[in-house]
């Protein structure tokens, strides 16, 4: 059993000033998860007649991407490649002091306490992070073989859970890792080719519009990513973007219009 001192960011709403409040937790079982510890804190607060801390969480197994806490300066806390919900209290020592803050970025307006609004990431996807299909009949999947390494690379990029830790970790609050993971996943696959150029252009422009910062290649995002998404996808997106932005689209010779 360990005891902890928690400094938790409390803020009633986006318009109100926030501040840290300090709580002491005694007899925390080291086997429980970080969020179970937060549940206990909330039970303790409710018992004391105080208002519990608001934080996002859902699946509690590291896949939904709801958690949005920065623990001691690290998005998702001290674990390697895991989300806050996967952090176990055994990673802390008795007497530790923890600073718990929300993800901070202009593009992620605070909702309350540790809860932020990450819908900017949805709007980036909305601008081009898809392959347009209807539900009607499709070609047989094996008619377009995709080599194993390409499928694996696409999967590496597709693993992104959209938690926004990359933005939280980036000194510039940049969403390049998030955006590039989706661009790379779809632009790599043969199915994604028809929309490849408009996809990368629109998604990058949308990302800027949402007021994320720019990439300075510091790789903080990669280290904070719970799914180990690599910054090499950022490089791939940079290449795709240049080709799409600077190289003329194929001249439509031979179409009816030009004849």
């Amino acid at each position, binding site marked *: 059993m360990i005891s902890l001192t928690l400094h938790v960011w409390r803020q*009633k*709403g986006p318009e109100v000033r926030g501040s840290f409040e300090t709580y002491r937790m005694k007899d925390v079982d080291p086997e*429980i998860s970080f969020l*179970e510890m937060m*549940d*206990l804190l*909330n*039970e303790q*607060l*409710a*018992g004391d007649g*105080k208002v519990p801390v*608001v934080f996002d969480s*859902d*699946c*509690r*197994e590291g*896949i*939904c*991407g*709801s958690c949005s806490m920065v623990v001691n300066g690290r998005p998702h806390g001290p*674990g390697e490649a895991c989300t806050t919900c*996967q952090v*176990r209290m055994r990673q802390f020592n008795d007497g530790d002091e923890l600073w718990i803050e929300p993800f901070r970025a202009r593009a992620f307006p605070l909702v*309350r306490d540790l809860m932020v*609004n*990450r*819908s900017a*990431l*949805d709007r980036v*996807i*909305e*601008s081009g*992070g*898809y*392959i*347009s*299909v209807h*539900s009607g*009949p*499709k*070609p047989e*999947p*094996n008619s377009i*073989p*995709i*080599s*194993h390494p*390409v*499928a694996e690379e*696409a*999967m590496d990029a*597709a*693993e992104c*859970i*959209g938690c926004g830790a990359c933005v939280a970790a980036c000194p510039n609050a940049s969403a390049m890792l998030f955006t590039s993971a989706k661009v790379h*996943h*779809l632009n790599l*696959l043969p*199915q994604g080719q028809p929309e490849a150029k408009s996809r990368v252009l629109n998604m990058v422009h949308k990302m800027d519009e949402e007021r994320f910062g720019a990439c300075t290649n510091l790789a903080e995002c990669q280290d904070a990513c719970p799914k180990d998404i690599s910054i090499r996808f950022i490089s791939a997106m940079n290449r795709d973007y240049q080709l799409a932005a600077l190289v003329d689209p194929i001249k439509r010779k031979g179409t009816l219009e030009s004849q």
Partner: protein
Amino acid sequence: MELNSAIPEGSVQDKWGNHLEHVKLVGPNNRPSYDVIVVGSGLAGASAASSLAAQGYNVHCFCFQDTPRRAHSIAAQGGINAAKNYREDGDTIYRLFYDTQKGGDFRAREANVYRLAQLSTRIIDQATAQGVPFAREYGGHLANRSFGGVLVSRTFYCRGQTGQQLLLGAYQSMQRQIFDGKLTMHPRTELQDIVTIDGRARGIVVRDLVTGEIKSHAADAVVLASGGYGNVYFKSTNAINSNVTAAWRAHRRGAAFANPSYIQIHPTCIPVSGNFQCKLTLMSESLRNDGRVWVPKQKGDTRAPSQIPESERYYYLEEKYPSFGNLVPRDVASRNAKLVCDDGFGVEGSDSRAVYLDFKDAISRQGKDVISEKYGNLFDMYEEITAQNPYQSPFKIYPAVHYCMGGLWVDYNLMTNIPGLYAVGEANFSDHGANRLGASSLMQCLADGYFVLPQTIGNYLHDIFRDKVGTDHPAFRQHEADAKDRIDRLMSIGGSQTPLSLHRKLGDIVWEHCGMARNGEGLKSAIDQIAEVRDEFWNDLHIPGGADGVNQSLERAGRVADFIELADLMCHDALDRDESCGCHFREEHQTPEGEVVRNDEKFSNVSAWEFKGEGQAHVKHCEPIEYDLLKPMTRSYK
């Protein structure tokens, strides 16, 4: 209440084709004037919402998460079944149908399950076209793995994140429709009530979880894709916020709730580790492909697993079920884990409620690298949670609540008995009978959302053309007032117990008496205990904070209130179904070896329960299940 399953004419194989030829349609020019509400944005909700919007309907989709991509479908790990027969190992549509029926212990509608098997192959085509990165072989073709309860390899997968990738495919399709203005997303919004006018579903009342505001939305049809209710057990593999509220509110407004006691307990979960735990972690059943399940032959053996020689290990699944071995269906695997632990063979720790799942043989046969490529993320996850390395010592596993076969009663068109109210995915009861096979839930959700609902909804909508109702209708005012009253009631109790502690109390009761094994005595006592919890809830609840703005305690309180009512119905249903079938194991009905004993004469039916009002007993309606293509037999995996 009348249950008309609306199953089309013709042989089982031809029903869906015939139905499509005769179903009524709405023309593309008229579709934009129809509003459709979809509640839930998981696989079923997202696929339905995106398909309907792509067809031209004006769709509004609601979810309580901050973005639709977080719905709990994302946690499905193992894979999705499809009768593609890529391996030429004897798979056919009929065999997928047969396996699903047999897995469900012959308690599902033939027509629905056959349609599911028929549509399964198109799901793979659809997902591939969306860019879902299914695992590929070196030749570039799609790879397969096998799953419990079947003798073919028909499961498609994306590492251990199949649900995530399929959901992202559907989510991305949704985002595209949002961009096109055909779909409006309402995140952080929770359903409070279904509005019915003249017996038809006409809209919903919701609470904005950020502002606390109660709002109404009117529509021509309402689709519930709100998932399962496994969280009634408090500890389950479901997401912490998954709830029954949408389905239960619909039920209270007249929708029949079918087979509530059919709950699947998943065999390969990480055992419970402490009192504070509120979430159990599932590891894909695909682990059983290569892992071997065993317990020490000697009771209370405290040696480390590596110190126990082969001759002193009891591979109980392999010994009892030689032909399926470790790949028996989930209910069988779970029940046997419970049996060996009840008999005192459970392994050290976790109150001896755990068995070993050993990869030693697989690693020595295939090499660590191959195993790591197949299951690496699961091994890592286990190590992260338990601080034990499964490459060196075996996994410890124990069953946990996972999936609800029961749900809102729907007809062949996926419409509940309230006209205009549909239920898709896990929220309905339709396709899995009394037990679901692994990798079938993704299949059902996507079949419902991409292919069934978009085709059948026109059959209803064409009929109500130009018969519009807006939110200014007095019924909306009334329902909004009801929702506000309920919240005020919850806020004003002023007791001392938090919703979380009452939820835990409820969960313990249901798990004890309506879990993996049930008996008449236990169920009766559970019903009494649930009534006590209900009293405690409404007299001693404490919700800190206010109702304006974010209040997660209030959110949970609303959900727990519905879980309490559901738990009562579950126990009544389990008590009423005086037979064993699939996951529903009544201890009174078993063979000497502990296998289930069905009673087809009396219970070859669906129990659909009707809500009669506060404090009144539910009324049961039966929809008989008849078999043309199959002859129900005793399930055997020996």
